[in-house]
């Protein structure tokens, strides 16, 4: 199925969790990263329980430098 990750169409398996997607992207456990499906921000301890659906719009951000 296809989900949108930071605006890009991404092919993922049909039973893909948010955890699996982030792992595939290469996000490490200690990184200051957050993810949302649509406008719902998903706590990190819920990534594994969050099953993605076809067409989901996923936003992944990381903390960076800024004033």
């Amino acid at each position: 199925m296809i989900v949108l990750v930071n605006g890009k169409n991404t092919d993922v398996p049909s039973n893909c969790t948010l955890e699996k997607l982030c792992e595939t992207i290469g996000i490490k456990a200690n990184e200051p990263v957050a993810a949302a499906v649509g406008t719902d921000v998903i706590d990190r301890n819920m990534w594994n329980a969050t099953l993605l659906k076809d067409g989901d719009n996923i936003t992944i951000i990381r903390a960076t430098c800024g004033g």
Partner: protein
Amino acid sequence: MNDNLVIAGREFSSRLFIGTGKFPSNEVMRQAILASGSQMVTTALKRLNTEDSGSENILDFIPKECVLLPNTSGVRNAEEAIFAAKMNRAALGTEWLKLEIHPDPKYLLPDTRETLKATEELVKLGFKVLPYVQADPVACKQLEEMGAATVMPLASPIGTNKGIKNEEMLRIIIEQSNIPVVIDAGIGAPSHAAYAMELGADACLINTAIAIAGDPVKMAEAFAFSIKAGRMAYLSGLGCVSNLAVATSPLTAFLEEEQNSIDNA
């Protein structure tokens, strides 16, 4: 005497907050933060590049004792700010938040209406909200009433280094505020920061002036001195300003008297 700054129940012995943008490298940023003695450091958010997620982890370059103050830079309205706040909280595990909503890319001036709207909601959601705001005394009181942890009025537009261009408004904000007043944006030199502190500001948030200095680490230290000096001057009580000269030596015209006594001898 303990002169610690208290924000939302947390004590800070340093009144210098550091923004982490624009440094030549993360390592220089780390050294500058250490040299400044700052205990409050801002961060920003960016969309992860899903094809290259391997950039440096900013947290490796911020001393562990610093409070992280993630910002909402890049949002255009209250709704986006609330989303960014929640993302920050999920990424960093903190409720501290520098709320900044500046849809205008030319001057990056904060949108007062959206800032008020977002503050009200974010306070209800449990965030410690430190809003970047116009030097508007009325808006600052409204933010205080809504439960903001501080107000952070600008001195001049972000990154301009122009210093304090709205002194009279800042004076009123400082006089009226029951929450800490942090001067944010536009402070371009240690002398500006010292002056802000002499006016009675509780702290200054500095980024560009340190990050783009020839030697950011030395400049961070210079700002630390200036903020301490300005604070000490404020606590000491500055003297009155006068239009006429006021002598600092006794005016007894002793030369004239001496000449008279020689003439009479």
